[in-house]
């Protein structure tokens, strides 16, 4: 009953007036330009009134946490994602990119009431400025908190402070015994 994702992505791309869209793994994703971010949401609001969520991804080369992206030919940026849908099950993810140095994007809080909190969270977690947002204050973090935790450059302090408890003074397992490949903890491998 729900249209399959690639058709949906194509149709939404048409409505929104952008050409790049993908639908791998069943998730319809349409790439939109920053300038037409609010317009795209306004045009979609009537057909897809359900606002699901809005968040961001920090594409960064050097990371203080986890592993950096595999391919290195990618442009360092913030990718803003917002997901809208309709009660009959259709759902599309709109995505746009903003550069890291001047990270600001117009707010869609007045198009979708629900975006208010999501944008506040993305703002405090990534340091993105949403222009025209009613009250862009901290949502989760205490007011005196500096720094933006979800940025890749922000270290996870608990893992720095407490070293890995399995202090080994036994040499590594001789390869021959019981063939247990070691499932390294990601930091050690990095």
């Amino acid at each position, binding site marked *: 009953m729900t249209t399959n994702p690639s058709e949906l992505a194509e149709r939404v791309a048409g409505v929104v007036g952008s050409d790049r869209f993908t639908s791998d793994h069943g998730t319809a994703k349409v790439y939109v330009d920053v300038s037409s971010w609010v317009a795209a949401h306004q045009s979609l609001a009537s057909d897809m009134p359900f606002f699901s969520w809005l968040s961001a991804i920090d594409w960064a080369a050097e990371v203080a946490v986890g592993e950096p992206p595999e391919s290195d030919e990618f442009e360092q940026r913030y990718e803003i994602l917002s997901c809208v849908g309709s009660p009959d099950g259709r759902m599309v993810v709109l995505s746009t990119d903003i550069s890291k140095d001047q990270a600001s994007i117009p707010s869609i809080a007045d198009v979708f009431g629900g975006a208010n909190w999501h944008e506040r969270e993305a703002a405090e977690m990534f340091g993105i400025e949403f222009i025209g947002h009613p009250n862009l204050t901290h949502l989760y973090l205490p007011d005196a908190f500096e720094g933006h935790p979800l940025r890749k450059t922000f270290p996870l302090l608990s893992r720095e402070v*407490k070293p*890995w*408890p*399995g*202090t*080994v*003074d*036994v*040499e590594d*397992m001789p390869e021959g*015994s*019981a063939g*247990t490949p*070691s*499932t*390294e*903890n990601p930091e050690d491998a990095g």
Partner: protein
Amino acid sequence: MASRTIPGSGLVKGLRLTLKTLFTKTSTVHYPLEKEVLAPRARGVIALDIEACTVCMLCARECPDWCIYIEGHKEMQPPKKEGGRPRSRATLDRFDIDYALCMYCGICVEVCPFDALFWSPEHEYSEMSITSLLHDMERLGVWLETVPDPPALES
């Protein structure tokens, strides 16, 4: 905005139900006197079989909370068959699980390739101070007896 219908049927039905329950047997277990029989797979505490452990650190590595502390050393074991050369074997010095941090996810029991860790439904090991929640090797060995044998399976 007074109650439009006479508060008759709804209230009376509620009263009848509470009265009926007043005279039915209670469903609670008097905990310290009678104890509930726990399911064999219930995850109460982790028991350690010290002989089986070869200090491969897999459990400590895989634990999401980093709450398993292991130290071991290599020892020369007498050769199995006489005339064979002595084999070196890793033995445990320290194997502590900090139950103040543990979230009972069971990844360590899962990932142990040498059947050294088992689940036991024991759950009455609360302590007065949080530091004594750090169970050492002997304590984990003691839990070994309380490990029940697995339940029979559906056909």
